[in-house]
C-alpha cells in the first residue's frame, strides 16, 4: 500500500511526481479516468473527465470537459518535469451503466471517442485501456512506477499497465 493516495473526484484532475504517491479515481461510470505517465521521471497525472466537449461553456469548471482538462493537465505535467514526447496514456471508464433506452445517459461512448481523438491529435500513444461495457471501475496509478490497476465492482485489482522502475543513474 502506498502511503499517500490522492482521490481524483468527478471533474477534478491531479498531477504528482512524488515517489510512493498514487492517483486514484473511485467508481468511474460514464466518466473517463485519463491517466498520463512519464516513466522516465516518474511523473503522472489523472483527470476524471465528465463530458467530451466544453462547447463554449468556459465560465464553468474547465476540468470536467475532455477538451479543456487535457491541455491543463499537460501544462501541469510539464511543470512537474514530464516531457510531452515521453507521455503514455491509459483510459479507464466510459461505461454505459444503464440500458440503452435512456439515450441521454449515453455519455460514456462520447467521452471515450473525444479523449481518443484529442490524444491522437497530440500524438500521445494509448498504451492500455479498460473502457466501454456496462460496469463501473476504479483506477489507481502508482506515480513512481507508472503501474496502473483497475478494479470492477466486487472484484480484485487487476494490472492494466505493468510498472517499470527506472533507477536513477549513479
Amino acid at each position, binding site marked *: 500500500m502506498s502511503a499517500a493516495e490522492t482521490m481524483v*473526484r*468527478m*471533474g*477534478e484532475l491531479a498531477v504528482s511526481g512524488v515517489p510512493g504517491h498514487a492517483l486514484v479515481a*473511485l*467508481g*468511474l*461510470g*460514464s*466518466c473517463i479516468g485519463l491517466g498520463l505517465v512519464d516513466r522516465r521521471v516518474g511523473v503522472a497525472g489523472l483527470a476524471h473527465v*465528465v*463530458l467530451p466537449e466544453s*462547447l463554449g*461553456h468556459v465560465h*464553468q*469548471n474547465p476540468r*470536467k470537459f475532455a477538451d479543456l482538462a487535457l491541455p491543463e493537465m499537460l501544462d501541469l505535467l510539464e511543470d512537474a518535469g514530464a516531457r510531452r514526447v515521453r507521455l503514455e496514456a491509459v483510459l479507464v471508464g466510459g*461505461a454505459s*451503466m*444503464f*440500458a440503452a*433506452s*435512456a439515450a*441521454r*445517459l449515453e*455519455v*460514456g461512448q462520447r467521452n471515450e471517442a473525444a479523449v481518443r481523438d484529442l490524444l491522437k491529435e497530440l500524438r500521445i500513444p494509448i498504451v492500455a485501456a479498460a473502457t466501454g461495457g*456496462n*460496469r*463501473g*471501475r*476504479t483506477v489507481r496509478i502508482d506515480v513512481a512506477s507508472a503501474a496502473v490497476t483497475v478494479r*470492477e*465492482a*466486487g472484484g480484485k485489482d487487476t494490472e492494466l499497465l505493468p510498472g517499470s522502475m527506472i533507477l536513477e543513474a549513479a
Partner: protein
Amino acid sequence: MSRYTELQLDALRELANIGSGTASTALSGLLSRAVDISVPSASVLSLADAVSHAGDPEAETTGIVLGIVGDMTGTVLLLVPPADAVAMCRMLGVEPTSEFAPSALGEIGNIVGTSYINALASMTGMALEPTPPTTATDMLGAIVESVLAAGAHAGDVALMLDSNLVVEGDDCAMSFLLVPDQGGVDELLSRLGMS
C-alpha cells in the same frame, strides 16, 4: 456555492417531502407494509461533492433511474443497498437471485418514482412524464456520476433532494434522489412563486 436562498431550499425540501410522502404510500401499497419517510434534505453541491454525499463510491448498490420529461427535465434515482434489494424481492415473492429480480426492482422503482413525479406535477402545475425505468447494480459512485454527467453540461452544481423510505419491521430502506437539470430548479421555484 449555493445560488439558492435558504427560503428557496426550504420550499424545495417541502416539495420533496410531499413527493416522497406520496411515494411512500405507493411503496406501502405495493409491499403491504407500513413505510416511514425521513425528513428530506436539499443540498446544492459541486459534482464531486454530490457523488461523495451519496456514500462510499465503491459500495455495491442497485440504482433505478427514471428520467423526467415535460416542462422540467431531470432524473429520479432510487438507490437500494444489496441486502435491502434482497428483502424487497422477498416481500414481492420474487427469488432475489432469479432473472426476475431486476425487473421486480425496476417495477418498484417505476411505481415509487412515478408517484413522486406525479406529486411534483400536481403541486407545481407542470406537465411531467416519467420515462421507463432502467436498473443497474454496480459501484455507487459509477451509478451516481453517470446520472449527474448526463445533466452536467449546463452547470457545475447539482441540486439533490433526498429522502429515505424505510419499510417498517423489515429493516429495509431505499434512498431517493431528485436531480433536476440545471434550468429545472429555476422552473420549479418559479412555479412555487419563489423565484
